[in-house]
């Protein structure tokens, strides 16, 4: 189920909120409320994946059992074996359902094996919930968290619908206490609702609109420089507002139910280096790879050659996590090279560069990366990059691109403004008064009605990160 759907907003959410908040808390226990959340999460997932819900449940039970065994055999070799088995189940499931056809196709290409592809549908959110389960078993093995003996509580963590299908990747240690002991306050609910509506508006009013422009640019027969840049810029805004909007919705919904998830985005497009960009973009994923892969490999406290290998390996995995395709792997390795370049060559230069030049460097690197990310294959990606730099074009500006530039000028300007902290700073700098509170409530109402109007009228509404 999509958050940005009539079914979620006006059927699922009001029913779940009503059931959740009328459910009593005998002796302060959240057991019954967690049961409501768990059932709601199962319905939420089964709505989009009526069969794969069993796979997710099986992986959750496997992670829970793995945790029990790690705890029981703590300090003995059995704990390591239990961890390895638990990780094997998670990674094995991911490999089978997400990557099997990629490997088979490459074996066929390399060896002419003629193996049949499995053509399995990708279970929604499998990359996210697999990583969440792995974070629990690894942290438990490392002694950084306590075992969760309640299957229901553990399943509530894994399947919690706000962050189930597109993150943020919430680590067990970050919500462990709130699973059984969270508080529900009117302030949390209000701020959660506000965050949810802001995320929903980013998704429906900006991401979807600029996604249309990106599609128009991608599919146009007008081979112009302007359309090449319109496409890549629109796609850059589309993916940012789409994914950060979804993270806002997840964080907001979580807060309405008393959970405090960590931030997943911090205005990545204002970064002054690619290194900084990745500290601001999909923070939960880069943090996961840093803590569970990069640092165990030695991080940067190793010889330069080993450090270069560590970076390349982690970014190979990051790219591969995003999709079973060479373009994603190249996308990851491209960032690895940029990070190495900045670390070993450009670091001091970027620090001295005037801001506009530093921003331009990041914008250029990131825009080129989206060409890899959105392309069906390497040739298409290189064609887009070539067009961006004037290769193989018929014209600089065409009538179609000019028309769409004019038509999408305001959404593009809003997106430019919205990806900086300026609106939040201006709003935050305004003293809290009754007038401000009233204006905020009105703005929230207007945004929610506008979003509803867009959804009811049936508009372009894909969600990029579902495929991961």
């Amino acid at each position, binding site marked *: 189920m999509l958050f940005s759907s009539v079914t979620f907003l006006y059927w699922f959410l009001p029913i779940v*909120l009503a059931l959740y908040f009328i459910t009593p808390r005998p002796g302060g226990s959240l057991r019954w409320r967690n049961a409501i959340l768990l059932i709601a999460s199962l319905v939420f997932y089964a709505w989009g994946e009526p069969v794969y819900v069993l796979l997710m449940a099986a992986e959750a039970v496997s992670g829970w059992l793995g945790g029990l065994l790690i705890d029981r055999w703590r300090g003995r070799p059995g704990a390591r074996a239990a961890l390895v088995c638990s990780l094997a189940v998670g990674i094995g499931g991911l490999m089978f359902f997400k990557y099997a056809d990629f490997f088979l196709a490459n074996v066929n290409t390399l060896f002419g094996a003629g193996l049949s592809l499995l053509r399995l549908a990708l279970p929604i959110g499998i990359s996210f919930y697999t990583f969440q389960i792995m974070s629990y078993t690894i942290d438990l093995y490392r002694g950084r968290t306590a075992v969760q003996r309640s299957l229901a509580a553990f399943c509530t963590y894994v399947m919690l619908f706000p962050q189930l299908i597109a993150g943020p990747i919430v680590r067990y240690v970050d919500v462990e206490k709130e699973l059984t002991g969270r508080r529900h306050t009117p302030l949390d609910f209000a701020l959660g609702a506000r965050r949810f*509506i802001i995320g929903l508006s980013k998704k429906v009013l900006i991401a979807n*609109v600029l996604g249309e422009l990106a599609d128009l640019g991608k599919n146009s027969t007008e081979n112009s420089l302007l359309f090449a840049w319109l496409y890549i810029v629109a796609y850059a805004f589309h993916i940012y507002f789409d994914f950060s909007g979804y993270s806002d919705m997840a964080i907001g919904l979580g807060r309405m139910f008393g959970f405090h998830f960590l931030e997943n985005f911090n205005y990545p497009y204002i970064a002054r280096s690619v290194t900084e960009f990745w500290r601001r973009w999909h923070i939960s994923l880069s943090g996961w790879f840093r803590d569970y892969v990069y640092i165990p490999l030695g991080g940067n406290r190793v010889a330069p050659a080993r450090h270069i290998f560590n970076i390349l390996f982690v970014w190979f995995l990051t790219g591969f996590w995003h999709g079973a395709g060479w373009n994603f792997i190249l996308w990851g390795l491209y960032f690895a090279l940029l990070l190495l370049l900045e670390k070993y060559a450009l670091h001091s230069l970027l620090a001295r560069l005037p801001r506009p030049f530093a921003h331009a460097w990041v914008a250029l690197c990131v825009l080129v990366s989206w060409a890899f990310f959105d392309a069906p294959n390497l040739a298409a990606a290189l064609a887009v990059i070539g067009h961006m730099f004037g290769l193989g074009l018929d014209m600089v500006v065409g009538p179609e691109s000019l028309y769409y530039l004019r038509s999408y000028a*305001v959404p593009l300007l809003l997106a430019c403004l919205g990806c900086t902290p300026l609106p939040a700073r201006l709003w935050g700098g305004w003293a809290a008064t009754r007038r401000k*509170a009233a204006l905020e409530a009105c703005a*929230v109402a207007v945004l929610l009605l506008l979003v509803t*109007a*867009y959804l009811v009228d049936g*508009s*372009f509404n894909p969600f990029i990160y579902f495929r991961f």
Partner: protein
Amino acid sequence: MRRENWLTVVFILIIGGFFLLNRLIPAPEISASERRPLKTMPELSVATLISGAFMSDFEDYAADSFALRDGLRSLRAAAVFGLFRQTDKSGLYYDRAVGAGKMEKVDPASLNRVAEKINRLAAGLTDCRLYYAFVPDKSIYAERPLPGFDAAETHRVLAAALGADLTYIDLVAALRAEDFYRTDLHWDQARLGGVLDALGASMGFTPARFTPESLGDFQGVYAGQLALPLEPDSMTIMTAEELERGEARYLGQDGVFQPGPLYDRDGFAGRDPYDVFLRGAQPLIVLENPAASTNKELYIFRDSFSSSLAPLLLPSYARVTLVDLRYIDSRVLAQYVDFAPGADVLFLYSAQILNNDTVLLAG
């Protein structure tokens, strides 16, 4: 009340309010503004649940049955054109010269497939005089250039793909922005003088004179789709003494021709006022002119644009037969139509059909 609670109240009022309204207000079966049936509650069964069909259909139903839907659609249109200053809403535009419309892209592959179908039909009509023309999308007459339809490209592709025995009649130069309804896809029958002149010059007839008869105001299909408050169009039909004596026979679903009027004035109050002209969607219609001073016959392979054009051609022919391949397969045509040797045959399609060839049942 604490100030942050205002947010909560607003949120619950809207989410909860629409939840209740959606339960209390019965959903209409059709959308009058969009001229389409609305989705109904999908069938709930184990099979539809497992396949996911129930869930995907439910989302369509939830959106279609939403309370105050027309108002919300207008709100979106106001946001698109007013707040975000966009010049079209998912391809639907409003232009000062031509009014509301939908941008129609040229699809050369589709044009070529239509040409193949026409060539196959023309191969069986060697005794006839063959003509082709296309009705351009009205966007080409817009005040501000709109991307999409390209009349020159359309002509270039068709001319290259169609047989040399078909004569091209240029209607692009014969039409102006004001010849189309401002809220609808179609051309205005009262303003087809240029089209009749162009056809007559090529096909060898002198257009007759007609008297206008106003039926009243109407909102075309794009008004509803755009959901903007637009000035209505007025519908005028062109009458003449010969037309009053003319007869129309419509092929029914039972395979039998039934008589009917050339202008169905009652249809003006129906879902699509353009159905006034030859009763809208019909597979095969034969128009007879008992007062004709000629025995010439005309066959038109056509879409809805010809519904309003054909009556104006009737004074120049003894019989006009209209074939709509969207509703009758060309392979069964011989059961109902005997093409008279020496007759005129006109292939006349609009941009919408030319770029969506799959709708034509020409095997």
